[in-house]
């Protein structure tokens, strides 16, 4: 083993314009072979646009893109043969059963055995005999996952894979992602929620308004995440007891309720709260819009990059 294997996805200064509106502003991305990579950003940040360029569903306006060493623009078919893709919004309207749709999609890839389809469907609890048209959102998402995983692609590109799945199935899905990684294959998954990828991703990039604002290890990212925490106690508490705690800021105490923002580990806050009787403990999902502004900004660019530059 000498040099690291070539990256599975690279983009350099990738741009995309829709008419006069610019959706991507020079995106640089690198996904390494065999990793699970989270692609995080609020809705409308450019996640799906990027993914669609990688599959040559839409064409870049500038910059470069490479998937599995190939330019999707020139070698779209070869790229797509090696990629399993779950669209962000899966529309399937056939009156025919799911089994038939999956067999057809398998045929487009040279055939996938019914046993393999059945095995994945069983894992996700998908009834293959039901017409796809009448399926619930969650069940359609299962059809999407089965077709993305079934041919054991070298690269999985999953756009918001857990949307519509209940928590138990989300766990099963994450297990499938881990198995894929154990197999040496690569997973690129997008989400607008940090929580959906933090348990499984090795690294993540955060995209905001068409720009990558950070790429780093998941652990480091989790460290940076700020979350709004609210604790209600059995009796009113003293504000002074909650100021100056490690990682805790913007403390607001009103009567028996403490609200604050926690950056990274809430350890100090939890230990201090434990001195009182806690009735409620609410911790909001970190807001991706905020994720990088507390740490990366020096107060100069609070509003983020302006679209006019």
């Amino acid at each position, binding site marked *: 083993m000498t040099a690291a294997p070539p990256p599975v996805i690279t983009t350099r200064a990738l741009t995309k314009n*829709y008419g006069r509106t610019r959706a991507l502003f020079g995106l640089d991305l690198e996904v390494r072979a065999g990793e699970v990579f989270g692609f995080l950003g609020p809705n409308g940040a450019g996640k799906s646009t990027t993914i*669609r360029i990688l*599959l040559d*569903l*839409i*064409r870049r306006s500038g910059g470069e893109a490479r998937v599995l060493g190939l330019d999707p623009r020139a070698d*779209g*078919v*070869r790229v*797509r*043969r090696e*990629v399993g*893709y779950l*669209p962000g*919004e*899966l*529309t*399937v*309207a*056939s009156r*025919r059963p799911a089994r038939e749709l999956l067999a*057809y*999609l398998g*045929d*487009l*890839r040279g055939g996938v055995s019914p046993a393999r389809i059945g095995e994945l469907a069983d894992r996700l609890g998908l009834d293959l005999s039901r017409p796809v048209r009448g399926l619930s959102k969650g069940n359609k998402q299962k059809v*999407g996952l089965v*077709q993305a995983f079934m041919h054991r692609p070298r690269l999985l590109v999953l756009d918001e894979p857990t949307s519509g799945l209940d928590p138990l199935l989300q766990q099963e899905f994450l297990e499938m992602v881990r198995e894929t990684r154990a197999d040496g294959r690569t997973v690129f998954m997008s989400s607008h929620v940090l929580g959906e990828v933090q348990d499984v991703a090795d690294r993540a990039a955060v995209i905001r308004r068409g720009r990558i604002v950070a790429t780093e290890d998941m652990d480091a990212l989790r460290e940076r995440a700020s979350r709004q925490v609210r604790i209600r106690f059995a009796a009113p508490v003293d504000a002074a007891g909650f100021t100056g705690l490690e990682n805790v800021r913007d403390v607001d105490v009103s009567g028996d309720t403490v609200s604050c923002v926690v950056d990274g580990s809430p350890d100090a806050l939890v230990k201090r709260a434990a001195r009182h009787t806690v009735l409620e403990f609410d911790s909001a999902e970190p807001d991706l819009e905020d994720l990088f502004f507390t740490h990366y900004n020096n107060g100069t660019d609070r509003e983020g990059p302006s679209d006019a530059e």
Partner: protein
Amino acid sequence: MRSSVFTRFLRDNLRALVGWTVGVAAVTALYGSFWPSMSEAGDAMDAYVESLPEGFMESMGWTSLSTVDGYLNATVFGLLVPVLLVIAAVSLGSRAIAGDEEAGALELLMAHPVTRVGVVLQRAAASAVFLAVPGLTVFGTLALLGPAIDVDIPLDRLLAASTGVTLIALVHGAVALAVGAATGRRAVALGAAAVLAVVGYLGNTFARQVEELEWLRFGSAFHYAMAPDPLVNGFDAGATAVPAAAAAVLTAIAAAAFDRRDIGV
């Protein structure tokens, strides 16, 4: 991808295919079966026709209602079947790319190892097969019922006339396909093909009366199917080749346009 896209498109449209085929067969059988009574009323019919305003017969494309070919041209081949087939073709052609795309269903297919050109060509070929079924049904219905309803036109002429009306539909379907493939908008594709069909039909009929509009006929698919009068003269190589070539060129344009643009935005 072999022929999966082709087969799947036909299967997805099987219900529509059955519906249109039954409809075309019913219309053909119904109007065909009126012929014996029409021919018996021949003299009265001719008198009625005499009473119509001058030019009316020509503008409707009617030559005579007292001969079997004239009658079938005025009913089955000149109006009802072309209208039905054109509607079927335009609806299918606009759905093949644009409709599927607007519904959001095309993205999943295009994320598979298929080419844009391949998908357009396979779906265009499936659409041609789709239209050939009701087209041949017109021929089959008249061929089967012929002896019973006094329609004694040779089979090759029936086939030529059925091919002619099918080609009209094919051309308009290809227009809808091309506009849809280029724009991704089903309504635009439907509209463009419908306008062209109406203009083509009227252009062909008015051109029969107004000399200055004669040139209009050559832009109308209806002209190539009807002017050679296939029920009397049989196949006409030129009149068959022109619409077939037009459909092929439109399909090539559809493939090229679809290959060039973003999908689903």
